[in-house]
């Protein structure tokens, strides 16, 4: 077997390193953080099992599966609706592959589960200018009258697919992007945030 244990490399390793960049005057308009080690998995309801699945999720994870593109937070897992009968499960406690395994066991026969923990980078973009930055690529209205904590959307940013949901009124948004385009996405994000000044936070990697 392989001599030493595997060292995991996050999607934005070497890019999302703590620093303060862009327009230097005043406080940064946005802060950016890569959320690493999350458990991520897609959950797709089996034909005719939608209701049963809701029940099972409620009892197993204490959270009501959202209808439509919204996010619902449970004690251990958040479920982000991204399509009819489809959710992205996100967990801090059931890290990496363990989430998909857990879902697979508890929802057997009710849903098709696919591990995505390695396939996405999750970025947290927060701060007074977060909306202005995202508006440079996201064709969706994030105005508080249209999009609030709990709202979620699947769309594109600058030709790259994205799933995002609002976390709080700071405002803070979580963005799940595809791992393979992280570098391109990072170029867009930093170019767009430069005008307002931005700070990258998180642990040094």
């Amino acid at each position, binding site marked *: 077997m392989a001599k030493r244990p595997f060292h995991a490399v996050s999607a934005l390793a070497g890019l999302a390193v703590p620093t303060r960049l862009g327009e230097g005057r005043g406080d940064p308009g946005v802060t950016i953080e890569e959320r690493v080690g999350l458990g991520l998995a897609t959950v797709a309801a089996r034909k005719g099992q939608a209701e049963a699945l809701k029940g099972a999720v409620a009892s197993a994870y204490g959270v009501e599966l959202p209808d439509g593109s919204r996010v619902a937070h449970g004690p251990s897992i958040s479920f982000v609706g991204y399509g009819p009968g489809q959710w992205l499960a996100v967990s801090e406690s059931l890290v990496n592959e363990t989430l998909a395994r857990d879902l697979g066991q508890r929802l057997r026969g009710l849903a098709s589960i696919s591990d995505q923990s390695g396939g996405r980078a999750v970025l947290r973009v927060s701060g007074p200018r977060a909306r202005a930055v995202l508006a440079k690529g996201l064709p969706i209205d994030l105005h508080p009258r249209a999009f609030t904590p709990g709202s979620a959307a699947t769309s*594109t940013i600058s030709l790259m697919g994205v799933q995002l949901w609002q976390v709080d009124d700071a405002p803070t948004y979580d963005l799940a992007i595809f791992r393979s385009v992280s570098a391109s996405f990072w170029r867009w994000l930093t170019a767009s945030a430069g005008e307002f000044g931005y700070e990258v936070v998180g642990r040094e990697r």
Partner: protein
Amino acid sequence: MRIRCPYCGERALEEFTYRGDATVRRPDSLDPGAAQAWVDYVYLRDNPAGLHKEYWHHSAGCHAWLVVTRNMSTHEIVAVEFAEKGASK
């Protein structure tokens, strides 16, 4: 153009991919007599200058296939539904 996806809500044109005529119905390929029906299905298209039912894929959104009823002269959209319920049924 903006299409109101039944799942995602109103979204910009660039999120969708077009397939075309949703009034066609797939014939039975085991029926040897279906030759003409197959030619119609694969090659012939309704192409009116007014309202038309057509398949759109919300490829940058929820990945739902939609049947959109749209005016080809004005681009006005009068109805959108999931393909599951869509025109071909």
